């Protein structure tokens, strides 16, 4: 296989972390909503944790993007 082609296939495969990030972000917000509906009085106090969890999940997906960019531009 052409090295250039393999590079692009690898970059494409590096988008797979989106799968995990999607599940993770869904989990974060879904569980927050479930908790908030059960105990609405505690919801406001947990908003910072919600954002922190969201940021962690999102970043995990973005690490995949970094791998893809490294493959395309730096290898």
């Amino acid at each position, binding site marked *: 296989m052409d090295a250039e082609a393999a590079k692009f296939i690898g970059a494409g495969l590096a988008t797979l972390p989106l799968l995990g990030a999607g599940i993770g972000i869904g989990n974060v917000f879904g569980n927050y909503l479930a908790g908030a509906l059960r105990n609405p009085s505690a919801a406001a106090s947990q908003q910072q944790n919600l954002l922190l969890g969201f940021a962690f999940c999102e*970043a995990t997906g*973005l*690490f995949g*993007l970094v791998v893809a960019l490294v493959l395309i531009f730096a290898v």
Partner: protein
Amino acid sequence: MAAGHSPMEQFTIKTLVPIEFAGYDISFTNSSLWMLLAVICSAAFLTLGVKRDGVVPGRLQSIVEIFYDFIMRQTVIPVMGESGRRFFPLLFTFFIFIFFTNFLGLLPYSFTVTSHIAVTFAMALLVFALVLVIGFWTHGLRFLSLFVPSGVPAWIMPVIVPIEVISFLSRPISLSLRLAANMLAGHTMLKVFAGFVVSLLGAGGVFSALAIAPLLAGVALTALEVLVAAVQAWVFTMLTCIYLNEAVHLHDHH
């Protein structure tokens, strides 16, 4: 995509004033320019905000006070307790600097300083070094007990301790990559959607009418990026706070 315009083009560093010192290239680049602008904006925002110093704050002063309150009373104190006060200047500086560079980066034709790992990694390394210095300064060699979680059976230690060490060492990488990758991804995405608008308009006919869709998506994404810019500035500050808290208090909860 419009021919010849890559969505990554916005991240290229252009030398504005070439300066060479002792064989090193320390030119004044567009990155330096936007960093300087962020510093000027934040200094102007904060000094003008508290200039009048009224008991009843005006508009600008109340915004400055919201910033202060958000970092001091909703981030630093809950995580670190009262001993977090001495780290407040550093944490607030991180927050304001990242906040302003992120937001200035959202302006069209501007440059996002925090999209470069060189910038964010420098800040993350500073945090890492600070945690090491403060940890060893206050606890001596007892600081190494950070790698030994309490309440874990002894036979599992040979596995847990290396994992803890690796996760500690990878902190500056994850801290800097999180911020840089978020900025990089967001701005690339905005430019990709802007590129869709241009190429659909260029296609003519019925396609020109369709250009409204990526335009609206671009507007929505810009709103998302405003959120991300603020959240990432806060996440960096919050994580720095958590790391410093570990260095100051080890395992005990302030």
